[in-house]
């Protein structure tokens, strides 16, 4: 059976246009979240992480595009171009492309948007990315709510294991739009201040925009210094409710159990958990229950939402990339915004950024539609 690795990666975020910019800011415990007051986006002030459009356009122009691209396409192209360049791979029929997004170019539905409405079809987005770089295969667009980013890595691994691809580029992204903000606002789920996952003062989520890319490969000659091995991954539906998590954490618990089983590991073997931690009451409580059921309550854990906000289709991807760098640098990043535990079961939330030898981490995500995904990664060459 082929080993499958995560390799070269990129993050285009409020922090800057590469992974390092995000890591350096997180090390200093600086949040990318800010309060914005723009009635064209939402009728009241909101807290989010946003990418500077002027700088994004400059970076996009350097790619010398021959056609016009939407803001999300610019974001994905800028992010993915760096990873393709670093990987030095020829885009043959053995190379796949997976795009992880919840809403894609949804902003083209806005009355003032100058792109045709057809651009909102996610297949169109796939075609744009495929054509720009000259991928051989049709893009696999994955739109599975908030688990999309982690699931996309899982799907890449599965296509490689099944023998269809040797390498898969995964790119994920979503924008902060009136569409998204108004929807979460209607659920009264938005926090007016930077979010505080798992904290007893948590007051809801922040939305963030971000583009992230990674090379998933079976070749151990294509590795970055921070590369990790995918040891196990699993998804499970709660079969309970479409807009709220299961009160017993059923689907997440099952995902954790199956991912650990595939990895051949027990709770004691996990050094760090990168949780979903959206900072809503129900989500964080559900996660605490599932982690306790799986015996993972003592493992150091954080949510990175206090840095990036909830970046939807990109969240699982960017949080996995940060986890890889955590392992590589042997550092546990503080769970930004956390002060005192506000869930009914014990958890070991990382309060201060600390150095520690860590080899293995678990990434989880949960989302609308009752979906849950877990994946376990380990340093290469252990």
């Amino acid at each position, binding site marked *: 059976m082929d080993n499958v690795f995560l390799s070269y990666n990129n993050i285009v975020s409020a922090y800057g246009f590469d992974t390092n910019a995000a890591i350096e800011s997180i090390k200093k415990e600086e949040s990318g979240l800010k309060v914005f007051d723009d009635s064209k986006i939402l009728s009241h002030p909101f807290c989010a992480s946003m990418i500077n459009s002027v700088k994004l356009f400059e970076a996009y122009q350097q790619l010398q595009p021959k056609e016009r691209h939407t803001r999300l396409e610019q974001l994905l192209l800028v992010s993915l171009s760096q990873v393709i360049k670093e990987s030095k791979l020829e885009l043959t029929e053995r190379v796949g492309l997976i795009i992880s997004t919840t809403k894609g170019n949804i902003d083209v539905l806005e009355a003032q948007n100058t792109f045709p409405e057809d651009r*909102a079809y996610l297949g169109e987005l796939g075609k744009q990315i495929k054509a720009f770089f000259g991928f051989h295969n049709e893009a696999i667009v994955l*739109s599975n*709510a908030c688990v999309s980013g982690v699931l996309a890595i899982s799907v890449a691994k*599965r296509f490689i294991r*099944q023998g269809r691809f040797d390498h898969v580029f995964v790119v994920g992204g979503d924008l902060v739009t009136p569409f998204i903000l108004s*929807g979460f606002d209607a659920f009264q789920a938005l926090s007016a201040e930077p979010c505080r996952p798992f904290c007893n003062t948590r007051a809801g989520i922040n939305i963030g925009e971000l583009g992230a890319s990674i090379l998933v490969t079976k070749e151990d000659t294509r590795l970055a210094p921070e590369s990790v091995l995918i040891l196990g991954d699993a998804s499970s539906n*709660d*079969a309970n409710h479409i807009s709220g998590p299961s009160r017993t954490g059923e689907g997440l618990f099952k995902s954790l159990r*199956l991912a650990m089983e595939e990895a051949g590991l027990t709770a004691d073997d996990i050094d760090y958990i990168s949780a979903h931690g959206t900072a809503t009451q129900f989500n964080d409580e559900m996660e605490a229950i599932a982690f306790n059921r799986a015996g993972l309550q003592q493992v150091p854990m954080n949510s990175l939402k206090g840095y990036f906000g909830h970046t939807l289709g990109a969240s699982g991807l960017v949080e996995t990339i940060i986890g890889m760098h955590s392992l590589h640098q042997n550092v546990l990043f503080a769970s930004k915004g956390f002060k005192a535990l506000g869930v009914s079961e014990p958890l070991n939330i990382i309060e201060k950024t600390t150095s520690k030898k860590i080899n293995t981490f678990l990434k989880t995500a949960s989302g609308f*539609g009752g979906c849950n995904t877990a994946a376990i990664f380990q340093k290469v060459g252990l």
Partner: protein
Amino acid sequence: MSTENFHIESYSQIRNQSVSLNGETIFKSAETEFNAFIKSAYKTLDTQYPKFFKMDQLSKLALIASDILLKTETDKNVALVLSNRASSLDTDRKHQASLQEQEPYASPAVFVYTLPNICLGEISIKNGLLSENSFFIFDTFNAEYLQIYAEHLLSTQKAKKVLCGWVDFDNGKYDAFLYVVAKNGIFAHSKKEINRLYKTE
């Protein structure tokens, strides 16, 4: 590639005002409007899911197409791997339009359906399936990717069976083709056979 052999156990289609199971029409209606058509299919086919009437059109389409295949299914480890072209755009347009009203508003009941995988949640709830879920978007029906992904889930025992297929709802037009992949079945689980069944009228 895996050398194991899997088969298509059964398949369903919803198109042109009719619902069929393994190529045989089990419901037909003169109703050209989707909502009236699918509601009468729900009643005639004895689908038991009161929430049906609150769902968006994509979920209604997916629920009926899946229910005729899963009604008699006793195994609960059935993975759901669906795909389409229009994602949840039908509901997305509704949500966006409400934001552009004179008095803008957003309805949580509409917003929650602005994700294509919500229909997987509905199918999971209806059938009590705590299984693998994924929703892919393709420009047109892509039998190859579905075949490979289902084959992987089965050969790695991540699922006992896989409910695969295509459910698309866009501007009043609808097309559903779902099939169950398992160890045993009538049809070969090959790209060619999947495409042939998809095109069967």
